[in-house]
């Protein structure tokens, strides 16, 4: 098990190399001189030249990349062009808000998705099943940022139940988390339903019924434990979807998170900040994914660690 964790950690290395190359490349392919971007177009050539020297922009690319990686490994992601603050500080200021939203939505979508999926598969009523599946399809197709807007109009403006200008605390979290959770909940409901239906047909479940076990016991002890394996498998994928969703949702609900920071950074061409956000988010995602995989290993004894 420890060996497995070590090996999974080692597998992160190529991914980190890839993501660092990608973020490094952002600045290389973008048109224009970073020094000019930082100082503005009215800066004197002398100042620009000085800054170029200071930033090491005159060095060969591999040297620049090496320095970039070296600094990133020490937590130094550069300074924001706009605020002149260290990028890492900007990110860490905003990170709790995004984490809170993502985890709340993960919890909501998992509970709601699995519950509706199990109900759709086990309740012997085609209207319930059909209704849940139709709802899931709507959930998959609805643009989350638009859903957020509609919810804001209804609950913020018409019913005046929540503030429409952001805010903090649990109350401000409800609408964004609900909005963000809808699509992943729909994916999970569909997956859970088909997975449960598959397991119900297995021989060991038939045996359990034949033994005369009560319906609920069979579902809980025999069906769910096995049907939920694919559900756990897609947790990582769900997390990726949620992180993508925060980019849109944080903007709808004016939440001070990393997604909103990223959008503002791109609009302002604040490249060190963009690079930092992409790198940071990828690392956080990779670590969360690793945690999910290790957890999964504990849950499913069939996983082999070689």
């Amino acid at each position: 098990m420890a060996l497995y964790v070590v090996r999974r950690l080692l597998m992160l290395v190529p991914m980190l190399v890839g993501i660092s190359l990608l973020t490094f490349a952002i600045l290389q392919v973008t048109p224009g001189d970073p020094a000019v971007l930082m100082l503005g177009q009215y800066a004197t050539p002398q100042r620009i030249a000085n800054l170029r020297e200071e930033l090491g922009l005159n060095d060969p690319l591999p040297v620049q990349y090496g320095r970039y990686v070296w600094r990133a490994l020490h937590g130094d992601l550069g300074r924001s062009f706009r605020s002149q603050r260290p990028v890492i500080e900007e990110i860490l200021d905003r990170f709790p808000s995004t984490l809170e939203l993502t985890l709340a939505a993960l919890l909501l979508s998992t509970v709601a998705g699995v519950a509706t999926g199990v109900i759709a598969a086990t309740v012997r009523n085609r209207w319930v099943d059909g209704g849940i599946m139709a709802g899931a399809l709507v959930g998959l197709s609805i643009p989350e940022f638009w859903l957020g807007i509609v919810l804001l109009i209804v609950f913020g403006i018409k019913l005046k139940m929540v503030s429409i200008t952001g805010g903090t605390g649990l109350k401000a979290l409800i609408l964004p988390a609900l909005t963000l959770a809808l699509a992943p909940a729909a994916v999970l409901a569909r997956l859970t339903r088909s997975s449960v239906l598959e397991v119900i047909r297995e021989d060991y479940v038939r045996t359990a019924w034949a033994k005369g076990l009560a319906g609920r016991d069979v579902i809980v002890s025999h069906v769910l434990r096995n049907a939920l394996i694919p559900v756990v498998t897609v947790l990582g994928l769900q997390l990726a979807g949620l992180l993508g969703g925060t980019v849109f949702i944080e903007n709808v609900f004016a939440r001070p998170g990393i997604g909103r920071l990223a959008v503002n950074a791109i609009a302002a061409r604040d490249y060190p900040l963009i690079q930092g956000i992409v790198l940071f988010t990828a690392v956080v995602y990779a670590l969360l994914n690793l945690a999910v995989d290790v957890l999964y290993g504990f849950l499913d004894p069939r996983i082999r660690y070689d």
Partner: protein
Amino acid sequence: MTNARQAGVAGSQVQPAAKRARQRRSAWRTLRRNPIAMAALVGFVLLILAVILAPLITPIPPNAHDYDHLLEPPTWAHPFGTDDLGRDILSRVLWGGRESLRVAVMAIAVAISGGTVVGLVSGYFGGWVDALIMRIVDVLLAFPSILLLLSIVAALGPNLGTVLIALGVSAIPGFSRLVRGSVLAAKNYEYVTAARVLGASDAYIMFTQILPNIMPPLIIYATVGLGNAILITAGLSYIGLGAQPPSPEWGAMLNAGRTHLRDAWWISVFPGLAIFLAVLFVNLLSDGLRDALDPKLRQ
């Protein structure tokens, strides 16, 4: 052989068109018997037609300002209302669909072509080429695609063309892996060996023997991707990273409507509804295609 003349006539009818039609017939028949999928297909085709024929449906240009009718709720003259510049929302939704749908469709086309070439080369030739390509694909699939998407948008600058490239490129790894997996299975079929014995070139084998057999999963994956691409195109425009004002692109319209959430809900509701319907039709069609093309996945 009983009737040589008849046989001769029939023998000369080996036409590619007839051949292709026959192949698809059974999947098509299954799809046609699925009323929901057919309704979705009709709906999507109507939506495309409405968008293409926008000038015939509504006489008002999408960017025509009418300062006598600002922020009007839906009326007979303006069925979807007007915005803060007096522009007709219906016209803008129809014209905006051209942008949104075109970008999404073209992005998927980029992803399919790129993914098919990469996946075919990787799966067919194998060896170190395959190992190298798949390592890169693994890395790209290992982090959320939104990061790749935002990186490309950041590097190339926010506009609709960038969104097209970013969406297409960031979907290539997924398509590559799908195609490669199917090619790995298909290249060991005996009839592929038979083609090699005949002296067929690698290109002939890839495009005539392998590619037609990997189409079903590719089509299913492409429709799923299309729904997603429509959502992301609009989403990026909504947060200001895609189409820029005064474009009537659906997401850009939602963005423009943000300041009037309090007094003019119609500016935000109708473009969103259009996105929702387009994606819903595509997803329904995708489910239907999955049932028709891949009976194994059927529940």
